[in-house]
């Protein structure tokens, strides 16, 4: 059982929804980003999604892409991202960390070496946007064998015929992408999301968390109310991008977490 599994079991027992927050590792620099990360659990974040910077984030909108560029310009790498996780783990051994990014930096490092280092650093799960089930042999299966969760995205284009394939090697939770589009784009509507979540839950016992297009405490609450929780990324990253100090960013994160938790 990973920290992710334990956290969802606890939330479920408490009858609470999960709030997942995304930040980009090293944005705008490693020290600031570590400060924010350290403050996330106290702000009510149940699971941390840590973005791994990449030059070509094809599934992300401008907000996340610019965050990745800021991080890369400040010298962030996969190695330093792992270092950041180790530093976080010195003061927090419970909060699950999901590394989210694209395959090439992992492939460049070497899958086996990366998995050993990621686990050693205290990463619990992976979301790799450009690895669909068709490419499971690349990283998904080795990651599961190494004891890491591999969290898959399900989308509005994932029809009933395809859904079992998407769910087959997924663990930890299912990340439902509420819109067809990129991160930070159109707003998700709870009324549209609810039947989709039900459709997925009919085929899996895993928690279903909804992301993309959630930017306010109100939408966090309404989306979380029709799922097992929600993810906010771009709206948080935009605060950092606007140069807000970590304390202000964390206050915003707390308002989102409170929204999701009141669902």
């Amino acid at each position: 059982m990973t920290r992710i599994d334990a956290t969802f079991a606890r939330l479920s027992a408490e009858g609470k929804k999960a709030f997942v927050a995304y930040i980009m590792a090293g944005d705008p620099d490693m020290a600031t980003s570590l400060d924010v990360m350290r403050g996330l659990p106290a702000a009510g974040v149940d699971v941390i999604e840590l973005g791994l910077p990449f030059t070509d984030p094809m599934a992300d909108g401008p907000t996340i892409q610019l965050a990745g560029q800021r991080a890369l310009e400040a010298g962030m790498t996969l190695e330093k991202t792992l270092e950041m996780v180790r530093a976080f783990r010195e003061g927090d051994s419970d909060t699950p960390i999901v590394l989210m990014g694209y395959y090439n930096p992992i492939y460049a490092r070497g899958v086996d070496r990366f998995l050993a280092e990621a686990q050693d650093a205290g990463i619990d799960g992976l979301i790799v946007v450009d690895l669909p089930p068709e490419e499971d042999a690349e990283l998904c299966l080795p990651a599961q064998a190494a004891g890491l969760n591999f969290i898959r995205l399900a989308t509005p284009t994932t029809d009933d015929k395809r859904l079992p394939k998407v769910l087959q090697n997924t663990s930890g939770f299912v990340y439902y992408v509420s819109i067809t589009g990129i991160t930070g784009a159109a707003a998700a509507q709870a009324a549209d999301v609810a039947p989709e979540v039900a459709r997925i839950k009919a085929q899996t016992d895993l928690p279903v968390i909804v992301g993309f297009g959630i930017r306010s405490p109100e939408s966090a609450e309404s989306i979380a109310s029709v799922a097992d929780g929600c993810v906010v990324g771009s709206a948080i990253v935009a605060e950092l991008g606007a140069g807000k100090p970590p304390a202000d960013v964390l206050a915003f994160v707390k308002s989102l977490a409170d929204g999701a938790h009141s669902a």
Partner: protein
Amino acid sequence: MNDLANSFMTGPDEQGRFGIFGGRFVSETLMPLILELEEQYERAKTDDSFWAEMDFLWKHYVGRPSPLYFAERLTDRLGGAKVYMKRDELNHTGAHKINNVLGQIILARRMGKTRIIAETGAGQHGVATATVCAKFGLKCVVYMGAHDVERQAPNVFRMKLLGAEVVPVTSGRGTLKDAMNDALRDWVTNVRDTFYCIGTVAGPHPYPAMVRDFQSIIGKEAKEQMHEAEGRLPDTLIAAIGGGSNAMGLFYPFLDDKAVNIIGVEAGGKGVNAKMEHCASLTGGRPGVLHGNRTYLLQDEDGQILEGFSISAGLDYPGIGPEHAWLHEIGRAQYVSITDKEALEAFQLCCETEGIIPALEPSHALAHVMKIAPELPADHIICMNMCGRGDKDIFTVAKHLGVDMAGGEGRVMD
């Protein structure tokens, strides 16, 4: 009949792989779309009416077959091998790009798609896509790096005249790879009505195979024409490579003719050096995953993608088609690089000796012909792919030769 067990023409496999290269590295939102595309393409491929429509338009709209031309004065000047040019620059829109665009748009129409998106570097693929969309009355949106919009102004205006919307891409560094990122973002957002018309033999399966199949008309014709002209196969094929579609189109029908040497020419920019001022993915890169496929990429230690550098906007891409990566690894084709300076010299020589103003992309191929032809015997036949005409490049060339086009006083040749 080809010996299937030893054939180089059976790829890709069911996973869309050529050896370890290729594949389907895309987000889940796009996965059902590319599976549908694969299914529809497989159906069209074996449908005679699909190819009948292609053949008709290739002949009456594009102007195929393109001539295979013996470059006699160039041959004399080089003093060695006999040089033939496959004249795909004579196609409607001035490059090989339209061969593939026609195929994809006919497929898009069969699939009921009403909106076409494309990425473009030099603008040739954008112009070809805008052209075919105009012909069929389809909405067309072309993503082009802001830097390329600036250096390829004539093509931008052409696309607009043809009714396309040209979106200058400023995300990332505003180059061809960023244009491809933005096209993918558009596709992921507009999944129902939109068809993504990729301009080269890259991207997720089935694009590399599909684009190759459409471009293979170049090699098929060249093979027949060479037979008519010389009664035999050429000894050496040479083509320029950015993503590699004109090269794959020429090479593919010859892959199992094992006596034929195959040479792909990458853009060496200022030289294939540690500073990465080039676009030679095979000679200066290593395997990685980008834009839906595994292939050779220009990247740093951390797997971050680097910007290529070339005088030619059409070769300015940090990757290469996965089938080329595979042909390189198994040694069926050889890949070399040519610098900006060498390409410019070839450009001028071609103008001067043959009365053909080549695009900067095939000027790279021609530069390699100039390198090897003098050392080869007179009965050695080289077939190079003149894949595009140079009208779009005259401003760039003038600038590099120090000619002020506005003043009109400069002298190009000395």
